[in-house]
């Protein structure tokens, strides 16, 4: 139980540092082109790595998760907002799991 609080405070410390240090210390733009490019790509890679295959494993039926992935990509391509895309994924899973036995 106490361990959970230690985990939470470690995460908070790191996240706050990541957010606040550029605001307080770095008052000039980063110069290294590689570093700037690297940092630009990091979020997309991390999120992609965490989305697949995890989305397929999160649902009761893997097929429903796979369909949610495709539906989410489709909704995002059509310009859906955060809540539209997230909602589309949920509805697809709910409906498919009603059908798949």
């Amino acid at each position, binding site marked *: 139980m106490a361990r959970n609080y230690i*985990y939470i405070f470690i995460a908070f410390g790191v996240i706050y540092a990541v957010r606040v240090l550029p605001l307080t210390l770095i008052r000039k733009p980063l110069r290294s082109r590689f570093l*700037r490019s690297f940092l630009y790509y990091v979020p997309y890679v991390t999120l*992609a790595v965490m989305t697949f295959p995890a989305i397929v494993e999160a649902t009761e039926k893997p097929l429903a998760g796979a369909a949610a992935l495709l539906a989410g990509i489709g909704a995002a391509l059509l310009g859906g907002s955060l809540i539209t895309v997230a909602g589309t*994924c949920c509805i697809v899973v709910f409906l498919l799991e009603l059908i798949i036995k």
Partner: protein
Amino acid sequence: MDKQIKLNPFAQGVRDGIPIALGYFAVAFSLGIAARDAGLTPWQGFLASLLCTASAGEYALFTLVGAGAAYWEVALVTLITNARYFLMSCALSQRISPTMKDRHRWLVGTAVTDEIFGISIARPGPLEPKYHYGAMAVAVPAWAIGTALGILLGTILPPRVVSALSVALYGMFLAIIVPPARKEVSVALCVVLGFLLSWAAGVLPGVKTLSAGMRTICLTVGISALIALLFPRKEEQDGP
């Protein structure tokens, strides 16, 4: 429109923060389900979300808590999964007026999220801390309460509903990564390589014995460095 112009910056922030709060609430509920699976209490989930306000970062945190990971692993994974906020804060730092008090730098830094950053940076002119606080005032509590309710009600809701809600978080990730991937080949490669190699790392002998957190770190650093070498960004392309 007249009314909107007359609103003070804080009220404008609240107004623009409401749709964000609604989205956060739904996604946080799904995050709460992940937190419940990791063995967190509703209060711990509330605290984690209030302090961290990070979707992917908290999701990674809960996964590691569930796996009983080492503290250094949590620190490293949190650093990697939240590296994007570093970039956003860098972008925000360029918009700070020289007359702004230093305490605002410390306070704005508590909630640099994808969406709050998005509306804050989209405002013309120098960064307005009060606008940022207005959005935080509605979005952050929605995030924290949603997480706690996800932990509480995740056990009450039927498994089929939980199963459906558990993909909301991934849906949000897709909403962040897919539109830029459509515009830029380099980002599309990031996403495709991320998907493929993450799947491969989970099935390849040897690699699959690494913890999920370590695999995320190695893949993120490796793929991002590769794409940065292949597609270095031009000055004017800068900023998320």
